[in-house]
Every structure is written in structure tokens, then in C-alpha cells.
């Protein structure tokens, strides 16, 4: 088609304006001097000052980060195992149930996951005395459970694309299946494992609904803190917090993008070199 798709390009422009105008507006209003969060009253950085002097925010962020680090790591280990199982072990007893268990949390509404986890923890505490109180442990357990299936999806689809010939070669050369998995399979799928970890980390860091059900007194994560404030309406210090979040995430994503681009180019170059060397 030689015609320039004017309509489509216009729609793209409108779409990106729609994506970013609310975020930009929020960033601009974070420098608003007025207490009324939506009326402009001059430039000020006082909301950033109040944000940084707020100990609650710091504590909540620290708790969120600890939960996210721990749950993402556990979720990656469990999720990778499940992904390998689904991609490689074609036949075993209970495969249907297993793949159902991996898919269901993906499409379960968060409210239902939330109430079911909470009831589960309460009844477990009643029957076996563990987990004794709700807080860090229960939130982490719930986060691991619903973020591991995202890791599984990523790992599984990467494994289905991976070339099995290398694994078979390692087997032929006398490696045991176990060694093949550690020496060949895991390195091959390591980018998928990394993106799985990142996804699990962000999901945990971002979650409100499941955390609000499974947490207990004294364990307020950052999203819960924001949630309790935002429910009462628009407040200027949340604008400042949001601006910082968007900036940090934007910078991280940009760096990751550049690095991935470079790695991709290097891989292409290596592949070409290897190809030429073969000729």
C-alpha cells in the first residue's frame, strides 16, 4: 500500500495523547502550591518536602520492597518449575489438573482471590495454628501464589520456542536429564526467567486488592497507604508520589530497553559471524 495511512497515524497520536495527558497533568499538579489538588495556585515543591519528611511513606515503601523482592524470587523459582513441567513433561498423572491450577489464578477476579486467601489463612490458623497472625508472611504467600503463574506463562512460551536439539545433544553426550536442565535448559531460558521475575516484582509492588485482604494491623504496604488516602479524594502529596513513581519506572524501562536493544544487536551480529564462519 503506497498511500500513507493518515487515519491510522492520527488515531495513534490521539491514543498516545489519551495515554499520557492524565499522567502529565498529574505531574504538573504535583508542583501546585494550592491545597485544593485540582485548582492551580502557583508553583511550589512543598508536597515533595512533605512526602520526604513523612515517615509512614518510607516505612510502607520499605515493607513493599521487601515483600516484592521475596515474593518475586520465590514466585520465579516455583513458576519456572511449573513452566518447565508444562512445556516438557507431556504426560504425567494429573497434568490436566495441574494446567488448570496454573491457568485459573490468571483469570480469577482479584476480589475472589483476596477473600479466598483470607478465609484460607484464617481457617489454617484455627486448625494448625499457622500463620499465627496476618501481615508480612500472609501477604508474601498470597503474592507468591498469584504472581508465580505469570512467570509460568512466560517461561512456558519461551520453552516452546526454544530449540530442543541442544538438549538432545547434551543427552546424547551422556548428560543426565537433571544436568541437562541445569546446564542447558535454564541458561537458554534465562531471559524469560528474568522478565518473569521483573513481572512478578511489579505485580507484587503494585497490588492493592489481594494485599488489602491478606494483610493485618501494622503491615501497610505503599499501595495500601495510597489506597487509604485516595479513597478520601485527591491529595497533592499523592501527586508528588505518583510523579516520582512514573519518573523512576520510566528511567528503568528506558535503560532496560536500551540494554535489550544492544543485546539483540550483539546476538544478531554473533549469529551472522557464526554463520559466515561455517561457510
Amino acid at each position, binding site marked *: 500500500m503506497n498511500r500513507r495511512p493518515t487515519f491510522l*497515524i492520527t488515531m495513534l497520536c490521539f491514543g498516545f495523547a489519551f*495515554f499520557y495527558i492524565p499522567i502529565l497533568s498529574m505531574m504538573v499538579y504535583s508542583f501546585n502550591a494550592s491545597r485544593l489538588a485540582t485548582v492551580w495556585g502557583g508553583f511550589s515543591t512543598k508536597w515533595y518536602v512533605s512526602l520526604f519528611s513523612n515517615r509512614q511513606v518510607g516505612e510502607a515503601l520499605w515493607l513493599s520492597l521487601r515483600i516484592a523482592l521475596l515474593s518475586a524470587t520465590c514466585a520465579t523459582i516455583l513458576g519456572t518449575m511449573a513452566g518447565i513441567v508444562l512445556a516438557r513433561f507431556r504426560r504425567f498423572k494429573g497434568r490436566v489438573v495441574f494446567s488448570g*491450577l496454573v491457568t485459573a489464578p490468571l483469570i480469577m477476579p*482479584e*476480589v*475472589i482471590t483476596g477473600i479466598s486467601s483470607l*478465609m484460607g489463612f484464617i481457617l489454617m490458623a484455627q486448625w494448625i495454628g499457622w500463620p499465627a497472625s496476618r501481615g508480612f508472611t500472609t501477604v508474601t504467600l498470597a503474592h507468591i501464589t498469584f504472581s508465580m503463574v505469570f512467570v509460568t506463562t512466560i517461561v512456558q512460551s519461551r520453552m516452546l520456542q526454544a530449540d530442543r536439539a541442544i538438549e538432545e545433544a547434551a543427552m546424547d553426550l551422556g548428560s543426565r536429564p537433571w544436568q541437562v536442565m541445569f546446564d542447558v535448559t535454564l541458561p537458554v531460558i534465562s531471559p524469560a526467567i528474568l522478565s518473569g521475575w521483573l513481572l512478578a516484582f511489579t505485580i507484587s509492588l503494585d497490588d492493592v*486488592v489481594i494485599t488489602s485482604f491478606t494483610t493485618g494491623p501494622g503491615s501497610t504496604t505503599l499501595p495500601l497507604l495510597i489506597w487509604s488516602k*485516595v479513597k478520601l479524594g*485527591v491529595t497533592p502529596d499523592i501527586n508528588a508520589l505518583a510523579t516520582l513513581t512514573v519518573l523512576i519506572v520510566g528511567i528503568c524501562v528506558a535503560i532496560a530497553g536500551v540494554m535489550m536493544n544492544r543485546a539483540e544487536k550483539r546476538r544478531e551480529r554473533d549469529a551472522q559471524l557464526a554463520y559466515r564462519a561455517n561457510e
Partner: protein
Amino acid sequence: MAAPPKDGKLAQWFHRRGWQDMIIGIPYLWLILFFLFPFCIVVAMSVATRTPTAPPFGFGGENPIINLAGYARLFHDTLYIRAFLTSIVNAAGATLLCLVVGYPMALGLTRVSKGSRNILLMLVILPFWTSFLLRVYAWMGLMAKNSWFNGLLTDAYNFLTPAAWAVKSIPMMHTNFAVVVVMLYTYLPFMILPLYANLERLDRTLDEAAMDLGSKPAQVFRDITLPQSIPGIIAGGLLVFIPAAGELVIPTLVGDASSPMIGRVISDEFTAASDWPMASSVAVALLLLMVGPMMVYTHYQSKAEGKAAEEQK
């Protein structure tokens, strides 16, 4: 093949099948303990009886073993029927809007140069990495009574309508309209990405052939692009509809409290009314209602996986 070294009994078991059993067993047990078990509690709870004890439910004893009062209330009490209808209408509206806005964007992404395409794709995904809560919050700022955005819309409205209808501001917050707009905003990437993945794979020579045979661009779109993108539309539509129907955060923050969505009803029954059995009945009903769309989704998912595995061979 080299002869394997002699192993102890345990090592023999481990290398033959133990390692496999372990990597199957550990995630399996985890999911059974922390997902299936709590889920079974919900199902059991939905037929329990509410009691003024802590935790607030009872089975057996003076209570009936199976109490279907919760399910009966779903049909008697109009609150629940209305909540289900509101959820379906809002989620369907958001899905349709996402399709209308997302389809041209996804198609546009396939028509720009490769370098800018990667950047634009990143810009589609970027809001997804920032906090969901804060994206909803951004719209609370825009829709508030005295915001610049509301002022702009109010001016436009007053300019277009007769003076007698003039308003000071447009009441947007705490309406189902606000819920649909915010859902469109937060779920749009879920529509664009699968659609883009689908449209990118299409063979453009078909378009050219149709053009050569005299089709106009609109006809090419209707006869060639659209039919081939149905799988992408279904995948994107379900990725928006399923989470939107059970949404809790958006209706709580910008929704109309007098006509709540089902997610909010479940949460209120559970926490505010502390009626676990009723909350569970509503939850089970919501799941039953979503079994249809979920099965369509998993069907297409497994089909796509099969295709990917086949391309691999």
C-alpha cells in the same frame, strides 16, 4: 554412550524419576495448598450459614449442612441482579471502547517504521509498569469538579447547547461513565498488544493483491484485514472483559456507590457486613457467569500454543 557411574539407591531414584517428580510436585503442592484449598473454602462457604460467631459461619450442629439461602437471595434481592447487570454493561462498554480505540492504534503500529515501532510499543507498555492505582488516581484529578479538564468539557458543552442548559461543571466523578472511561484507560494496553501481535503477522501481499484487483482501502480492510484479525480481537476482548467484570479498585474510587459493580458487592458483603457465606455465594455466581468467557479464552490460548509448537517443528 558413556557408562553411568554406580549410584546409591537414592541417587538412582533421583536420576531416574525423582528430579522430575520434584519439579512437578513442589509447584503442584504449592498451588493446591494456597490456591485450590482456599478456593474450595469459598465454594463450601457459599452453602454455610451466617452466625454471629467469629469467624462468622457455621456448618452442621443447629445449622443446616447445606444452606442455599445465599443463592436464593441472589435471585430475590434486586441489589445482586442490578450489580451483575451493571458489571456486565460496564465491562462490555469498556471492551467495546477499547476495541474501537485500540484497533486503529494496533493497525497504525504495524504501519510505522521498525525503529519508531519499538519506541511506540514501549510507550504502550510503560503505563502498565507504573502503578495501576496511580493511573486510576490520575483520572480522579482530571474528572474532579473544578479541574482544568472538567472546565474544558464544561465550556465545550455550554458552547454547544442552548444557554438554558448551561452547567457549572459536568458531574463525572462517581458515575458509571467514569468507571467505563477509567477502565478504557487502564485496560487499553491489554487490547492493543494481542491485536498488534496478530496484525503484525498478517501477509501484506494479500492487501496488495486486493488493491490491484480494484478494492478500495476500506474494502481491503473489511474483506481481508478484519476477518484475519478475529483471533486477536477475541484475545484482546477477553483480556479486557474478564478483569473488568470483576474490577474492585475502579468502581470503589470513581464509581457510583448507589449502583455498585459486583466486585464491590463481594468486598462489602465480606468486610463491611462480615457475611462470609453471602460474599461466597456472590463470588461463586460471578465465577459461574465467567466460566463461558474463560473457556473461550483458554481454548484460544491452547490453540495458539499448539500453533507455536507446530511452527517450532
